[in-house]
């Protein structure tokens, strides 16, 4: 899944997002000295190869009023963790779900699911729904509420060929 120098220039030029103009790929092409068709082809190719996961909006959960943000964490039986993780990840209430290693004895949890709500009570309701879905495969769980954003930056990318 290789990307060349031109791909990297396109990636760097879209870090700030697409232009809110009728022909955003043409705007990008002009900036890069490429044709609009080449920019579109290369973006399509990167999307097909998985370099681009998707093109679209990232909503700000806080600005949407979803100020309660809970990282729910679950100690799920390894034998069924992937199967159950798929189900948890598919819930509308869950924005991200991952399996991660435990750090015993301090940290017994292997499934992480981010849940957003307008209040903590709402997050707790959603957490109860996940608990019901996991059933006996889950030994113990917890929720960690974020109390403050200490830093937030986008993905950085070193420019130029590598």
């Amino acid at each position, binding site marked *: 899944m290789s990307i060349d120098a031109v791909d990297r220039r396109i*990636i760097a030029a879209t870090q700030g997002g697409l232009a*809110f103009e009728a022909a955003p790929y043409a705007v990008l092409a002009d900036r890069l000295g490429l044709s609009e068709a080449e920019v579109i082809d290369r973006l399509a190719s990167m999307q097909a190869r998985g370099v681009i996961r998707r093109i*679209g*909006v990232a*909503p700000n959960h806080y600005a949407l009023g979803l100020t309660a943000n809970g*990282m729910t964490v679950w100690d799920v039986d390894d034998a069924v963790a992937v199967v159950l993780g798929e189900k948890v990840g598919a819930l509308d209430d869950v924005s991200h779900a991952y399996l991660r*290693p435990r750090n015993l004895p301090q940290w017994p949890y292997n499934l992480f699911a981010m849940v957003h709500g307008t209040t903590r009570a709402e997050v707790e309701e959603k957490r109860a729904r996940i608990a019901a879905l996991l059933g006996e495969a889950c030994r113990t769980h917890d929720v960690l509420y974020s109390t403050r954003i200490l*830093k937030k930056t986008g*993905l950085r990318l070193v420019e130029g060929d590598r």
Partner: protein
Amino acid sequence: MKRKAAHELDATDRRILNALQEGFPLVPRPYAAAAAELGLTEAALIGRLKAMRESGVITRFGPFFDAAALGGAFCLCAMAVPEERFEAVAEAVNARPEVAHNYARAHQLNMWFVLATETPDGIEAAASAIEAGTGIPVLRFPKLHEFFIGFRVAA
């Protein structure tokens, strides 16, 4: 951070947010194509997106890249920081360019951050440097498996 209260979003804004999380067309007039799907005009869609971007409802609009596909590496990390040292440690952690974001969370492990580096080796180097600089162990939680990501705004 500029904020716009949730109630200021109307049903059309919410439909736009849900539809455009799914994808955006790779055609010369993508806003026109997306607007047609939503029953809007191109100008109306662009205007609403611009307003939501300016008010902070939309954090970013564009392609989202897979850092691993670009040759980079990501790792969620956590630390148990004594309350009296919290601000100083946050400052030291945030000062590192590898730290993409960092959240305070209500738990004994009270600082959670993501390291993003060009290579997998960079993760170890950055985590070790933070441990050396703060004297606090950095627990590493690399992603082993990622599940389908679905998030919908209540319509």
